[in-house]
């Protein structure tokens, strides 16, 4: 138990610290692929996936950890990931993003987190359990991509590494625009840790390493899995209302609590912590975003981390299919929330201009 608490909190705190300082926001990254034609965060995610994939499969080869891909419910994964993608835009951050922003003192993220935990628990053990399981029995096939093709997993890992390197090198070679930064007020380690802007690719390397570390730490406590957010977030609430620790307390619970702790430490030390209250509109949209996230992630069997970072690294259909539909979900929501309103405003402006000159 003590080991579970310590290693879970430690791993979570490392992750929370790194994503807070690195502003590792995948929701923003997916959105910007569409509204700003900027793929940097997708490439950063690929770096984290590739590093984790190499590391975890090396651990599997050497027998340190065990893994079985199991089966994928296609319909549930596709619909769930798409709904999740819409939810994270409304909530202003994915599941991990919401945990770390909660640590920065954003009350809006607390609200989103409440909706997310509530809906995940409702789907997993509550009133909507039949809805959740009905779709999970539909169109179920083998989940492992290498098994489907009858090829060695390392072939796919090598392919991923090559593709990632190609995009990373191409991005780094682009002529750079000088981005204005805040005048530095600190020096040495304090400057590097709590002030300097971290390159997303550097942050991604650290996220990949933490994702590897999560596997042996988690398996040592009997939880055969890596980083995961949705089930542990639901577990927190399920434990609180049932008091059943044997069922709901596991390494993952301390992982998510650790994220909150790590991001709080990072934000506080960087002078970026403050309780911030959203307006009514943001609060409502955060809550509904959280509800959609809980609904979607339960169906899809994971969030941006569980599916987008971990299942992808394990070379499963679930990971890559969910990632693709999650991105489509963020684009759909972005169209209605950002692209269309801006286009309408531009049109109106043009009309007013015409009216005044005519």
């Amino acid at each position: 138990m003590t080991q579970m608490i310590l290693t879970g909190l430690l791993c979570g705190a490392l992750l929370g610290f790194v994503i807070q300082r690195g502003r590792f926001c995948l929701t923003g990254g997916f959105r910007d692929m569409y509204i700003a034609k900027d793929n940097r965060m997708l490439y950063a995610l690929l770096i984290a996936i590739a590093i984790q994939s190499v590391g975890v499969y090396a651990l599997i080869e050497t027998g340190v950890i065990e893994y079985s891909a199991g089966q994928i419910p296609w319909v549930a994964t596709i619909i769930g990931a798409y709904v999740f993608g819409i939810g994270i835009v409304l909530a202003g951050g994915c599941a991990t993003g919401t945990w770390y922003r909660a640590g920065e003192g954003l009350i809006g993220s607390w609200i989103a987190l409440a909706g997310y935990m509530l809906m995940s628990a409702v789907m997993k053990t509550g009133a909507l359990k039949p809805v959740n399981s009905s779709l999970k029995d539909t169109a179920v096939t083998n989940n492992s991509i290498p098994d489907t093709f009858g090829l060695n997993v390392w072939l796919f890992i090598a392919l991923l590494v090559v593709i990632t390197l190609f995009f990373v090198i191409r991005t780094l070679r682009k002529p750079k625009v000088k981005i204005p930064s805040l005048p530095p007020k600190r020096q040495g380690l304090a400057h590097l840790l709590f002030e300097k802007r971290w390159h997303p690719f550097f942050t991604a390397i650290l996220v990949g390493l933490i994702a590897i570390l999560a596997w042996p730490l988690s398996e040592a406590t009997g939880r055969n899995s890596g980083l995961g957010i949705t089930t542990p977030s639901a577990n927190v609430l399920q434990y609180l209302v049932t008091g059943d620790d044997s069922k709901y307390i596991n390494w993952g619970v301390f992982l998510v609590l650790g994220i909150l702790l790590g991001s709080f430490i990072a934000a506080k030390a960087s002078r970026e912590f403050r309780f911030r209250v959203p307006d009514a509109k943001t609060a409502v949209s955060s809550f509904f975003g959280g509800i959609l996230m809980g609904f979607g992630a339960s169906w899809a069997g994971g969030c941006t981390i569980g599916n987008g970072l971990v299942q992808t690294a394990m070379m499963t259909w679930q990971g890559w299919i969910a990632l693709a539909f999650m991105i489509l979900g963020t684009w759909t929501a972005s169209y209605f929330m950002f692209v269309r309103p801006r286009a309408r405003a531009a049109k109106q402006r043009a009309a007013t201009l015409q009216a005044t000159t005519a």
Partner: protein
Amino acid sequence: MKHKLPTLGMVCPFPLIEAQKAMDELPSGDELVIDFDCTQATESLPRWAAEAGHIVTNYEQLDDASWTITIQKK
């Protein structure tokens, strides 16, 4: 001329979206003063300004999780 854009309480990506909207309305040479408290915007606002070719004339942290940036339209 300076225009004020308060975005306090707005979460990512709204400070950026509102800044882009406000900038669309401004004539060239005018400045937009954006006060914000969304941490992610410390990255997205200056980045957008630089990439769009606008000039950042002031950028500072005012207090815990509170910043201001002034961007002059190109």
